[in-house]
């Protein structure tokens, strides 16, 4: 099995310094579902000591986390020209 890190390594990105998705620390840590941990196809949400950590680098811009999140998740696309550059979409 190819790890998700290796697979993301095949994808071309221009990472913006400012994240385009901003989970709210308090809401996330108190969330009882934490579905983001497994529905994100890039595995960008991680849990450590009960706290949710999110890294926008490697975001595939699918929108699944926004749809699945039981809270209002602040979700935007990256700015024009930034983010993922698929070649075989």
């Amino acid at each position: 099995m190819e790890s998700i890190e290796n697979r993301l390594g095949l994808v071309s990105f221009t990472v913006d310094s400012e994240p385009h998705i901003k989970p709210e620390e308090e809401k996330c840590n108190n969330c009882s579902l934490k579905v983001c941990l497994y529905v994100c196809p890039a595995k960008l949400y991680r849990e450590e000591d009960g706290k949710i950590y999110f890294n926008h680098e490697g975001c595939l811009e699918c929108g699944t986390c926004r749809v699945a999140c039981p809270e209002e998740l602040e979700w935007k696309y990256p700015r024009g020209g930034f983010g993922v550059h698929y070649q075989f979409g």
Partner: protein
Amino acid sequence: MDRFDAVVIGGGAAGLGAAYRMAENGLNVLLIERGENVGEKSVYGGRIYSRVFEEYVKGFKDAPVERWVKKERLTFLDDKESVSIEYSSDETCSFTAILTKFNRWLSDRVEDTGALVVPGIMVEDVKLNPTRVVADGEEIECDAVVIAEGVNPMLTMKLGIRGDWKPEEVAVGVKEVFKLSESEINSRFDVESDEGVANLFVGYPIFTHGGGFIYTNKDTVSVGVVVRVDSAMKNKIEVYDVAEKFRAHKDVATFLKGGSMIEYSAHLVPEAGIRGVPGELHRNSILIAGDTAGFVLNRGFTIRGVDFAFYSGILAADSIREAMDIGDAGLSGQIYENKIKESLIMKELEKFRKALNVLENTRFFDEYARMMVEIMGGIFDVREESNRLYDVVMDKTKGRKLRMILDFLSAFRGL
């Protein structure tokens, strides 16, 4: 800033269809795309139904078609085994393509017609009275706007034209593309160089709403899994590894042996059929098209969206043109509603309204997928005594015959 007759937001199939048609009809059109290049944000499984493109795009014969689909295969997978049904024909109505390349080609055709295509710009807002589009701090005035922003309807929601998707209305698709030689693909899939295979899978590894897919391109193969977001949530499916699990099944792996993965991608797919189409598709002279409007038909064994997207763009373009001919762009919304209502898109979505109930039934994705494999296994198991088909079927369907008959009847009617 220049004034345009119409601004199109999004360089996917829907936006490109709208821009192409409007420019062809003499309108002054601007298409804005957020990707650095047109096509780089578009992701799908792998197959496009060709008719609309053949009818509306000049020079379509030069489009970057990968392979014409001559074999349709439906495979039921359980953990170890599989059963496949294959339909093979000389006739074809669809082709595989890399959507990124296909949309880039379409974009070149759009520019040929005289429309202005500007990639690398994110539209921040669309405003009413007067109609204008805000991007890069500039306000661009126009008579009409086509929002073809894809499945995540961020601008459309802001305008209140539609709400956001519920988890049960969309599926997340993950795709891996493998490099293989053209001749390897031909021999493994038993096809000629310009012929392709569309293979959908039910069952393993998700055993719930969705399934796997393989599409053959010229010298690459697209492999992946689609799973409805609510089912992924409920069953705690690790979406980031689901394509890998699928690919590891021996009956999938056999097609990819020796190939190297060259890209991994993910995208949402509208799966609510007609229920995913909002009551209104416009606000004044702002029209929505493609995935934004929910124009995708999922029948379980086929999924159709790219041609609907392009065609809805064409209809939006024609509506704007007609309204402007009357001298009131504000009428374009109502004209569009009527055109869509009478179109092939809505006829198809309406016709398969019942398919939504059938595909809601998880037994098709779990119990019956496994049962197909078990029945075939029972027939072909001749280690000692052979089993009669009747005995195998009776045995494998024990205690669930009536429910099964009812389920299958509903499938016959709905799909």
